[in-house]
């Protein structure tokens, strides 16, 4: 008796076999192939035990709350999202980056010597440094305020963190943009810190408006455990130094990036 191939059995199990009836008839008569199919199913059953976290009953509402301010009046008017007040600062940074890239391109257009290419990269990087520095400063202030928040009295049952929550939502939009830009610029260290910051901002943005003192403490401990404030301060200090320093040579840039990767 000719047995089924592994490919045929997997295709049968996943419901994509061309000759389903033929395989089915063969399986009814062949113990070896049934055993082989059972072994495949055991592996798939193990994979099925991997859990998917439940995002919560109000998840759909939360998604809507996140995206609604970014939607244009009518579908297709994508450019309108950049006119939303919350995205104007991020849009400003993008415009600044584009202008910087254009200016750098004009300056270095005629003679594309290695020095000029390096200059162009330096201009782009310095623009990013200034914008990200400001963003990190705002994020740090919000996280410090949240970390230091305490109930007014021991009897207080709920603490209102809606202001921090709204700021976190705004910062989240900018953060995504800067992280993507940092990645495109090849600054893995900065992208990594921004990625971690994004997780913390996401946690804060998704917190309820009012939290119990115990919940507040849990948020504060989470911020502390991730050491994000320390990382943000280190990177921000370094960005400020780069801002103040005269234009560094490309080699120095690379080593600086490598140093930050170790934060």
């Amino acid at each position, binding site marked *: 008796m000719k047995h089924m191939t592994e490919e045929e059995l997997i295709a049968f*199990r*996943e419901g*994509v076999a061309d000759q389903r009836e033929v395989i089915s008839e063969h399986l009814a008569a062949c113990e070896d192939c049934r055993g082989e199919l059972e072994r495949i199913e055991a592996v798939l059953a193990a994979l*099925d035990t991997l859990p*998917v*976290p439940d*995002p919560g009953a109000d998840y759909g509402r939360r998604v809507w709350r996140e995206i609604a301010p970014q939607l244009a009046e009518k579908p297709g008017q994508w450019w309108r999202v950049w006119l939303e007040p919350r995205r104007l600062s991020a849009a400003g940074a993008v415009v600044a980056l584009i202008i910087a890239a254009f200016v750098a391109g004009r300056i270095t257009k005629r003679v594309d010597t290695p020095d000029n290419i390096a200059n162009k990269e330096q201009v782009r990087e310095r623009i990013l440094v200034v914008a990200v520095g400001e963003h990190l400063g705002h994020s740090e202030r919000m996280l410090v305020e949240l970390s230091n928040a305490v109930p007014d009295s021991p009897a207080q049952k709920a603490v209102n963190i809606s202001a921090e929550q709204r700021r976190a939502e705004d910062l989240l939009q900018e953060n995504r943009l800067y992280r993507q830009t940092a990645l495109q610029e090849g600054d893995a260290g900065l992208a990594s810190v921004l990625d971690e910051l994004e997780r913390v901002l*996401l946690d804060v943005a998704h917190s309820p408006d009012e939290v119990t003192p115990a919940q507040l403490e849990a948020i504060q401990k989470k911020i502390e455990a991730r050491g994000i404030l320390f990382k943000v301060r280190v990177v921000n200090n370094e960005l400020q130094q780069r801002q103040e320093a005269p234009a560094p040579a490309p080699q120095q840039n690379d080593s600086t990036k490598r140093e930050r990767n170790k*934060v």
Partner: protein
Amino acid sequence: MIRMQQSVDSTQALAESDAVAVERTLAGDRDAYRVLVERHSHNVFRLAYRMTRNRHDAEEVVQEAFLRGYQKLGQFAARSNFGTWVYRIAANYAIDRMRQRQKEEARREMPRTEDKDGMENDPLTRVKDEAPTPERLTQSIELRKQLEQALAALTEAERTAFVMRHWEGCGIEEIAAVLKSSSNATKNTVFRAVQKLRHALQPMVETRAQARAMGTEL
């Protein structure tokens, strides 16, 4: 049979209701899109999480999928199913996100905010165990780690094909559209994915089955 008919009926009713919401959105009623977002967010999250294996990325994929869906709604063919359509957008963005994440991981020298077992420090993603003795917990964590590693070893196309076919029950044509591939090539991708997973996991699965049969499993 009655249950199956009811299921078909409710799916049709949902699709018709989706079509109305799409029409209203296109006519300028932005709140109509809210119905679609709230209705499909959970399913899109499940797909995104299974593809990215990361809650943070999955949430980003969901938001981006609905944003892109809104921007491209004019291109949505009225006869199509909105759920399937937004699924496709999410799967495409999840592939982009996985690629980006891979590059990031390759470049990254900093330790991730994960515990020593390589899992996200998120209680919601932890395995629940009725009797969490330290030994059983260790075994559960070890099992999950191996399952996650086997999935992570798949290529993006293989993982996409496996998730969409095995877990989400998507049709081959639908998966082929996401992978920009032919039906036959997509079937091959599903096969390769399962084959790789099998080779990576079968020894461990059999050892556990034997231990269970002998009553020596902790």
